[in-house]
């Protein structure tokens, strides 16, 4: 009985030592210094927003205009914009700032420049924003261990109709043939 107890104790010690050794061994080697930014900065370098030709700054036209907050079909201008983005609940001024048209705004009323429009999108699509910051949502270019190219949400998704359109696929591979040249 005593022998058994000693055996159990001994194997416990061996296990503990083994575990601590394995723990050390399993630790991944630290990545080479300077390969990855440790923390993603609050503001990211992004390409300029994809404005239509000659549309920005919006204040060029809007500066002297009275603000009409009633929800309506736009007829005089911007009739090309078809909103298919939760259109039953949203309208222009939910994202665009009424008092300064060169900005967007958050639900809190905070003004956000178009270069940081991802903060506006992230109010509803929070998990996409989180993934995007981590480099997982959206297209990446550049270096896996250095400067990564980020895109604004609006560079890929039309903010007014964010769903992707279907694409024509590239040619299918040639089926294998039995004939040799």
């Amino acid at each position, binding site marked *: 009985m005593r022998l058994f107890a000693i055996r159990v104790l001994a194997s416990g010690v061996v296990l503990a030592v083994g575990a601590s050794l394995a723990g050390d061994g399993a630790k*991944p*080697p*630290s*990545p*080479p210094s300077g*390969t*990855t*930014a*440790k923390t993603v900065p609050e503001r990211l370098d992004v390409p300029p927003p994809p404005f239509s030709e000659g549309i920005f700054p919006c204040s060029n036209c809007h500066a002297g205009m009275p603000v009409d907050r009633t929800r309506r079909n736009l007829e005089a201008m911007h009739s090309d914009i078809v909103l298919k983005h939760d259109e039953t609940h949203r309208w222009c001024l939910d994202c665009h700032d009424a008092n300064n048209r060169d900005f967007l705004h958050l639900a809190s009323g905070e003004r956000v420049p178009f270069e940081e429009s991802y903060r506006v999108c992230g109010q509803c699509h929070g998990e996409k924003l989180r*993934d995007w910051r*981590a*480099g*997982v*949502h*959206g*297209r*990446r*270019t*550049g*270096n*896996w*261990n*250095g400067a990564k190219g980020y895109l604004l949400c609006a560079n*890929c998704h039309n903010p007014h109709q964010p769903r*992707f359109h*279907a*694409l*024509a*696929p*590239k*040619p*299918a*591979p*040639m*089926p294998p043939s039995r004939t*040799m*040249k």
Partner: protein
Amino acid sequence: METDGNSTHPSRRLFTIAAASTAASWIMTACGPKRLYEAPKDRLRAAIKEMESKYSKLHGKKVTVSDAGPIPGVEFAYALDISRCIGCRRCVYACVAENNQSRDPQIQWIRVMSMEKDKGVDFSHANAYYNPAEVPQEGHFYVPVGCQHCENPPCTKVCPTGATWTERDGIVVIDYDWCIGCRYCMAACPYGARHFNWEEPTIPDQEFNPNTHYLGNRPRTKGVVEKCTFCIQRSRAGRYPACVEVCPVGARKFGNLLDKDSEIRYIIEHKRVLVLKEELNTVPRFFYFYAT
């Protein structure tokens, strides 16, 4: 305590056999042409110089052949978002252009499989030859398949000449000068990732990518096997593979498995991840995931 000298100590005969076989194997490996990492550095440099001038003459532009080795502390892994891929095959053609794959006969390292949502990830019902006017098609999803860069690769084990092996950064590579074209590796690969040059490959000179790597996209000849190398000429220079950069829906992700801040680690820790043919215990470094 009883002792038995015969059973606990190797016999003289056993020792002689072991010594003789060790000597024989040493002689066999020491003779003959050197493999990539056994060759002295200056000899390798000279061989590469010779390659560069040969390829430059062949394609009428300045071709560089890199022999950049694995970066310490880096193990590459890849992740592909099945919920985003739309099957547009942009990756296939970016890969062909980047890695100098033969246009005729056609070789493509990436094969995009169209699968039915009702059936799930099922290769027996997959179709690589889908060709609708627009993708994605209703009720279908797409699984691009290339080399999975297995941690336990069946392909390298069967190579009789040691022409294919796993690099320290996880890339499974082929030395085209050592490949004898027996295609055992192609039979062993459960993913159909390896491709054989049945004919002398043809690539138009103006489309030839002159930025090459010894173990990657340097020109191949008739009779050798080739496959994805995670764009070794780009990834070892810190860049993303060509397929990652071209994907219009951002479904392709690449990074260092040993860096806890990398995209790849984020995906493995936060998303639903799967590997293809897990039951074969090939342990792929190529992960598929669902981001949504």
